[in-house]
């Protein structure tokens, strides 16, 4: 069934396209679409049955809220029943809320090869509120996606 859906919905093609887009996004100066692309890509990769990656959310319940400082971006990601749901709206009781100044600083915070996490927090480029272990897990998954996108794993 999963394979059938992948075929019908061209998920693998879309995943490959999104991965390329995401890599381009990371290389761009502003990286404004970084978060949106990352979340789309992440949810798609979970669906495409990359078994190793899907294992990350098996049995995992987590509610994430991402907000840009200027309120132009509000995105939530909810992990439940082995699925990831992304929506552009506020959610109740997030396990962690991550407020960020712009896409570039969020990228730097999460997956830069030379992350400046402390600098980001001190400058309040990124302000996490809530259980940091959820953030660590998310950062791990984002990093893993990056390594998959660049063919490193």
């Amino acid at each position, binding site marked *: 069934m999963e394979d059938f859906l992948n075929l019908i919905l061209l998920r693998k093609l879309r995943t490959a396209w999104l991965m390329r887009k995401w890599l381009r996004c990371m290389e761009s100066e502003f990286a404004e679409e970084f978060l949106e692309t990352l979340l789309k890509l992440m949810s798609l990769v979970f669906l495409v049955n990359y078994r190793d990656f899907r*294992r990350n959310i098996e049995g995992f319940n987590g509610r994430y809220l991402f907000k840009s400082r200027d309120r132009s971006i509000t995105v939530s990601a909810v992990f439940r029943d082995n699925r990831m749901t992304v929506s552009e709206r506020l959610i109740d009781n997030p396990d962690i809320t991550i407020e960020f100044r712009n896409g570039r600083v969020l990228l730097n915070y999460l997956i830069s090869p030379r*992350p400046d996490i*402390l600098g980001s927090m001190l400058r309040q480029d990124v302000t996490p509120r809530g259980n940091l*272990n959820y953030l*660590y*897990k998310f950062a*791990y998954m984002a990093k893993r996606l990056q*390594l998959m996108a660049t063919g490193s794993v």
Partner: protein
Amino acid sequence: MSSIRLKDIRLTEYSLDNLELIRRLRKSQIGIMPEVCIERARHLTRYLKNMSNDEEPVEIRYAKAVNYFLSNKEPLFFDDNLLAGTTTSKAFGAPVYPEYTGMTIWPELDTISGRKKNPLKLSPEEADELNLEIYPCWMERNIIEYTRKKYNNPECMGLFEKFVFFIAGKAGTISHTIPGYGVALDRGLEFIIEEAASREKQIRDSGDVTGGRKQKAEFYRAVQIAMKGIMAYARNLSKKAAELAGKTDDPFRRQNFLTMSEICAKVPAKPATTFREAVNSLWIIQVGIHAESINMAMSPGRLDQVLYKYYRDGIDSGTLSDREAVEIMSCLWLKLNDNTNLVPETAEELWGGAGTVPAVTVGGVDENGEDAVNELTYIMLRVTELLKLRDPSMNARYHYEKNTREYRDRVAEVIVNTRAVPAFHNDVVDIATLENQGVKTAHARDYGIIGCVEMGIPGRSYDASSSIIFNLVSALELALYNGKRPIVGDERIGPGTGDPEDFGSFEAFWEAFKEQAAWLMGKAIELNEYFGLVHQEIYPTPLLSAFFEGPMEKGKDLIFGGALYNASGVTHIGFADTVDSLNAIEKAVFIDGKCTFAELVRALKTDFRGHEKLRAYLVNRTPKYGTEDPVAVKNSQNLIRFLYDLCQGHTNYRGGRYRPAYWTTTNHAGQGKLSGALPNGRRAHEVFASGITPVSQAARDLAACLRTVGGLDGLCIPMGEALNLKYPSVSDDEDLRKFASAVEAYFRSGGLHVQFNIMSYETLLDARNNPDKYPELLVRVSGYSAYFNDLNDAMKEEIITRTEYDIRTGRANPFPATHKSMLPYEEGGDGWKIS
């Protein structure tokens, strides 16, 4: 000690040339890449997830988890070390403690092996296990997140997580203390179990097993369970050693395995009777303690006293030679280096390079106040001199009225030969300081060093000496900016204490500073208390408690205040920079009228851009801590007294007082990099001075420096201080005599501690530029030793720029002209000029 039997206290007949085994073991251990070890995390997770009973009392539940781990811990023998037992399942391992900060490496699991600073090997399979099996179970149960939830994410947690105000040590460790090994070595763990069982039975037989008595019974039960875990591990080591003996054709190895098998079949369950048994028993117990408590600054203490009777019996009966004692102690030193701590990359960049700092203390006086230096003291000094290892953190106590000059000079010689270790501690002041804290004289005389420089009473005091790392410069900036700290934005954080331009006197500013410091200290202590209460609730320490006087008698875990003495340590970062800034404000604004307070603050906000003349004045003409300028002396003494009163005014959750200290590990470098410009002319993002040491290059005269630091009231520094000094070389006997005499003069003036780097500016610059040339360069940081190459750039810079004194003249040497840009200012004629 009435007489030393050794013909040569330097023990020069033993060297790495003729100690072939030790040379080989050392070679195989130095330079080995550390690996992440998930063994403990795996077993604890498995037990708590699948086998534990949530209804059980937490004390018993946790003891069972530790027992399960120790019973299943793999008995491993990586090399020909004479001692059995390993901290981790790797030859050089960094254990994961998910209940503390072990989850902070989660984002790095795929990249940690290749990261730039201090990489750690981690196989993809073990990374997967951490990611999928282990970490998910601890999402809500590590100390930080449990505390956050329980106390509704308090404001003090937010301050801690901004890193630049204070660091709450209990998030990552509570372990800074010195267990007492005496009972375990002399009578064996079976004795401890019997005692706990008997006390438990007494309660249960009384028919009243309710409330506090129930809790006591549970504690005694937990002690038995935990002790049995250590014994199970020893039995497994014994079996494995016997098995390996049968598999090797090498006669030395076979015999070594057979001996270890016999030893582990006996100790630590039963009393040790030989020196080797005692040392191996102690080591297995240390491994056991790390099954429960994190591997950070769990310090073995006064080993020359603890082990002496076994040594003496062996020597007297002819069953032990000094050579064998040197070999066995060398093996213990190497074992203490078999583990390191697990640190995420960001923390490495700011605070990297520290070992696990198990401190060993030698020398000083005994409980009767008499010279305690013995043959083992010299053997341990020789081993330290030969091996030149990062750990153990070696500390030599010196009582200038009781210890011999021979001993003092020998310690100085070892420092010169290792270039860094041991550190010197002043028995006279240290003992008086502890007595002032209510410690009985006999117990105070038995003090040992914890981790860096903190004083604890082995097996009697639970010190948690790293509870709070308090950034003094934060309080200073909050006072300068009316409750704000620019590096974290425009939000008001501290109380409004007024705009500096409104202060009519230095005293008014001093009051504002004190108000901010008191407010911030209150927040740091509030969080420490929360963490302490959470430890009581979810991670008690029955295993560790068994090695202390008090818990067994009271039926109370250490974490509930079971120890004879209780304290929490608060160490301060940026002491010298804060004092010099207070001096500069007093002189520039209120004495010389060189600028208004508002002008000074404007200059600070721009990092002195456009205010170079003012900066030159601040650097050149304001008093410096470490000189005998009366303003500097007054401000340093006032600050020490104020912080002492502030800390001592708080009582911790175990009923002990907070005790101030001045050691900084690498925090002075990291926090300096995160701080703005200061009134003493220090530019933004420059490192702070270390420990209680004057700002680099500020104190040009060594004698004056030692008098002023020694002149600080030692009674107000009950958790220790770190004074870091640097000589380029100590070339001959005359130099060595001067070196040792300077230490003694400093101690007689009241100093608690001093440590040295015997290396020149040029050597350190060369080491920074050519790391491959200096793979084993050992340096003293601020209370502990590190390999220079492991340190981050900021810390290297701080060590390089520390004032270097000429041993013969006592004057500061000029900094190399080619690198003067590293300095905030340089020497010029009578005063200073901007570089």
